[in-house]
């Protein structure tokens, strides 16, 4: 039996608020061990940041130096780097020392920047001239310092796509700064001894780069990783008892008097999608409704829960699909047909079967890229079989619901 789970709606969770997902966590660790970088993109509020915090803790425990940057609210490359330097000062004193030594030797950076850095934690670079003006030198110094550090450095950047979007939507120089960052991150991944990284975000980077006409090559070395809903009787490939266990642990954590397995069953049936947020919200609403017996629970779902699920998840699909309208017609059609074929398939469908199903003049790599785009945007998820063949399926039961509602399947 899982330990009781404390309710926490709306936040990335740690410790007693976190529901352990051993299989998913193992898979994530395995991915970061075998790949230089992991891209964990998907819908908002599905648990990516919580997973990122778990990784931070886990890798720190495994003698890694983990630098976690939350890119929310950060408006420039300078601010991002200032945040990174703060992290370095706090968590990687070795790196910090190396950087200080190098900076003291001049290092090709203006004195003003060196002085600002030397002040240590909390440094904020101001003015028109900043790190981005000396980006190559600065990135090189960082890389060198990371290499000389006594522990492997893992870089975690949360909400990177939003940060890039902000820069790409601004001035040409800001756009250039965003590209500089992406190039640097790619370079670090592609080193013989890569600086490992996990990049997370609520919008897909591929669609964003395509929208802004930027080469997808900058994403080389990133393995996509899905954050699926909690597994249950109908989930693909995950522990079959994950969702019921989650609800049960949550009920015990809240000390809900009179909660029965039947409550759990009805909740899971009615909820439809088993992201932790959705299940917590359902329990929260049931508590507010006075915890009705299982036979009367359904009304709470129809009145309180489903509207929230719609507002939380289905609207995200709407917003993401709108972004695709900026793509060329052939790509738009292919995206629609790929998603349609995935939704209609009774079982997860392979790349080969998808190519046959959609009949497009696009080449295999292009189709693969479009599939990854759909994946980053939370429409589809992918599992590998033992031959490393990819099999695609809707990322959650909400996708077929949204597909039906959107009317895309009816378009010619």
């Amino acid at each position, binding site marked *: 039996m899982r330990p009781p789970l404390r309710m926490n709606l709306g936040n990335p969770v740690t410790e007693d608020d976190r529901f352990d997902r051993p299989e998913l966590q193992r898979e994530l660790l395995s991915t970061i061990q075998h790949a230089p970088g992991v891209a964990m993109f998907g819908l*908002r509020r599905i648990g990516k940041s919580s997973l990122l915090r778990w990784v931070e803790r886990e890798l720190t425990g495994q003698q890694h130096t983990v630098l976690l940057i939350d890119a*929310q609210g950060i408006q420039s490359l300078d601010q991002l780097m200032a945040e990174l330097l703060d992290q370095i000062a706090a968590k990687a004193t070795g790196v910090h020392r190396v950087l200080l030594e190098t900076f003291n030797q001049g290092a090709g950076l203006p004195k003003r920047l060196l002085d600002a850095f030397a002040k240590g934690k909390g440094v904020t670079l*101001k003015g028109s001239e900043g790190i981005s003006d000396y980006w190559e030198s600065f990135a090189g110094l960082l890389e060198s310092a990371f290499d000389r550090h006594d522990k492997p450095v893992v870089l975690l950047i949360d909400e990177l796509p939003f940060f890039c979007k902000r820069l790409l939507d601004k001035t040409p120089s800001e756009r250039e700064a965003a590209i500089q960052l992406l190039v640097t991150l790619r370079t670090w991944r592609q080193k013989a001894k890569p600086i490992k990284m996990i990049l997370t975000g609520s919008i897909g980077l591929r669609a964003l780069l395509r929208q802004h006409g930027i080469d997808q090559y900058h994403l080389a070395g990133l393995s996509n990783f899905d954050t699926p809903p909690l597994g249950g009787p109908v989930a693909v490939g995950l522990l079959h008892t994950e969702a019921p266990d989650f609800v049960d642990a949550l009920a015990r954590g809240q000390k809900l008097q009179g909660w029965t397995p039947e409550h759990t069953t009805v909740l899971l049936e009615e909820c439809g999608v088993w992201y932790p947020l959705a299940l917590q919200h359902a329990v929260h609403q049931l508590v507010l409704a006075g915890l009705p017996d299982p036979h009367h629970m359904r009304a709470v779902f129809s009145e309180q829960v489903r509207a929230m699920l719609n507002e939380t998840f289905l609207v995200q699909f709407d917003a993401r699909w709108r972004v695709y309208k900026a793509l060329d017609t052939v790509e738009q059609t292919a995206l629609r047909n790929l998603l349609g074929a995935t939704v209609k398939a009774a079982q997860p469908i392979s790349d080969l079967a998808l190519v046959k199903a959609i009949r497009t003049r696009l080449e295999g790599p292009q189709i693969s890229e479009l599939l990854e785009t759909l994946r980053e945007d939370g429409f589809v998820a992918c599992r590998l079989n033992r031959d490393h063949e990819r099999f695609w399926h809707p990322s959650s039961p909400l996708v077929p619901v949204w597909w039906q509602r959107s009317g895309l399947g009816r378009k010619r």
Partner: protein
Amino acid sequence: MNGAVIETFNTHRMSEAAIKALDTGREAEQQAIKAAIERNLDRIGSTSTPEHVALYGPRGFGKSFMTRLIEIWAQQHGTRLRYLLLPEEQHNLARSPDALLRYFEQLLLHPEKAWEQAAFTWPSGDASARWSDAVKQLDAAIDQTFPDGQGLVVAVVENFDMLLRDVFGEASAEERLRKWMTRKANRIMLFVTATGTVDIDYDRPLFRAFTDIRLPAWSEAECLEYFHARRKLEGKPELTAEQIGRVRAITLFTGGNPRMSQLLGQVLDDNDALRAAELLNALADKLADYYRRRIDDLPQLSRGLLDALIRGGEPCTPTELAKRVGTEQSKIARPFALLRDHDIIVGQPATGSSEIRYRVADRVMVHFYRLRYGGVAPGAISLAAIVDFLQLYFDQSELLEEAKKFAEKGMHLESEAFQAAYFQLWDTNTEKSEKKASYIREIHKLSKMETEKLLDLFKDRIAAIESKMRITGIFNKEAHIIDLFHQFAVIFQRKRDFPKYFAVAQREIEFQLSVKSFHDVLYFFWIRDEKISLGLEVGWRLSIFHSIINSVFSKSTPKEQIYGLLFITVLGFIATSNDYLEISKAADFLSDKEIPEQLKNLMVAAQAALSAGKTSESLERVDPDFAKVLRLVWDLPLSNIQGRERSGKRFSRR
């Protein structure tokens, strides 16, 4: 009375004892907030992020009251918990997101100086740097407040949706807020209240950042509980059975809005409907800002739908509303749902249908809307606009009694308002198939009144009926009113009170001829009569045609009136519509005849006897003179008609 009405419901200034005494319902919501705080206290010392709570509810639903209740509860946690209750608005934070954190800092360290220290300062410099500095200083203040690190700050910010819009409007500012809220080991919990949305917009950084709790409207029982508690607090006697009944009316009328219920509660001690109406008007006037803000809180399309709902009539299904505004239901789904989410509208299943019909929950709001946006004519009496309230405040029979009461006082407009309320209520409560019968029964009840008063009321009723027919659309206007007149006529006929009978008939024909020509009216009945059983309708035809002829000749000589009586008496024996028409052609011809005054009386008696179903033979046995007249009545018009050339084609048969 108005002065007493508008007392401010300022919970921030209410005493702890009053807050506790008036604590009504919302146990589950209270418990959910307390549980979130308790969980956050458990998180202290760990890396977990505290939950943040958003309490939603329309204005006046008791959000501020809830923050005070939680404040009182929080005091029991002693030094482990600091509860910072900010004022309801924060004009001092204009364009300075960091000033919010500095405000918290002041309240923590120097609450006695917070008034001066938290004053507005001009925003200058790098916003990001200012925010970072403010975060650090606040953290230091928290460290100072809880030296052992084992404490939680609960910062209560009301109208948080407004604050987000005005102070954190830039996405970067909201992102910084979100980041601050979700950072590890944070020791400040935000407990915010809002009428609009705070965290449901996918494009905003705060998307789903709070544990949402929505305050429901008061139920009838909760409303009652509140009034019991309030009267006890005020040292008033317990509610009487009648007052308890009115609590129900208040709950329904305000849609369970606590503030409105509290304000309207003053009518519990007052039996006078007019004063209740005054109160309602005063509320709509004095609370104009409140209602404007409630409407302003809505997105534009939702406001448009609200307008269409009120102007076009309630209740209404989403399908009907979509049709009304000229679009498809799918297109109004989102703005319509927001009306529901803002507790502006409530739905009830439609009778005999799976559809839900919606109406505005707070009827004072509707009253305000009508008053403010032209739904009530300038100078119209207050009662006319509060028919809804009257329906709830009085039961059906009371409405009728009030209508009579005002009619007796010569206050016809007031009487009309009660009649309108009565008819609307009747319409709501009565199945369509039963409406006509029920209506007629009610008219019979009116027969107990004195004739002249009855007629006065009757006149008012025409307006009420017209109003009702606009609402229901189930009756043909003229036919319905004729039915109504007829019912009066029958009453007086049966009483053999013929002067009154004629007076009623006179009214009927006046009405008929005000909307139609004589021949059109006749034609109308001809069409109608072919569709109904003549045997059952003899009395009806008698009275109607009597009235028609009577009215036609009313401005002529008495003799012509008698011809009219004669005419319709004959009609009572004629079985076909064709003959009605033919007889009508004879009207001019008959007007030449001299009939003595005595005969007039006999004719009346004959008509009454016939309409009562007595045959000429039976009458002859009782009263030979009467029978004689009757025979004359029978013979005269027929012979004249027969003697007249039938070439007049004033009416087409079909």
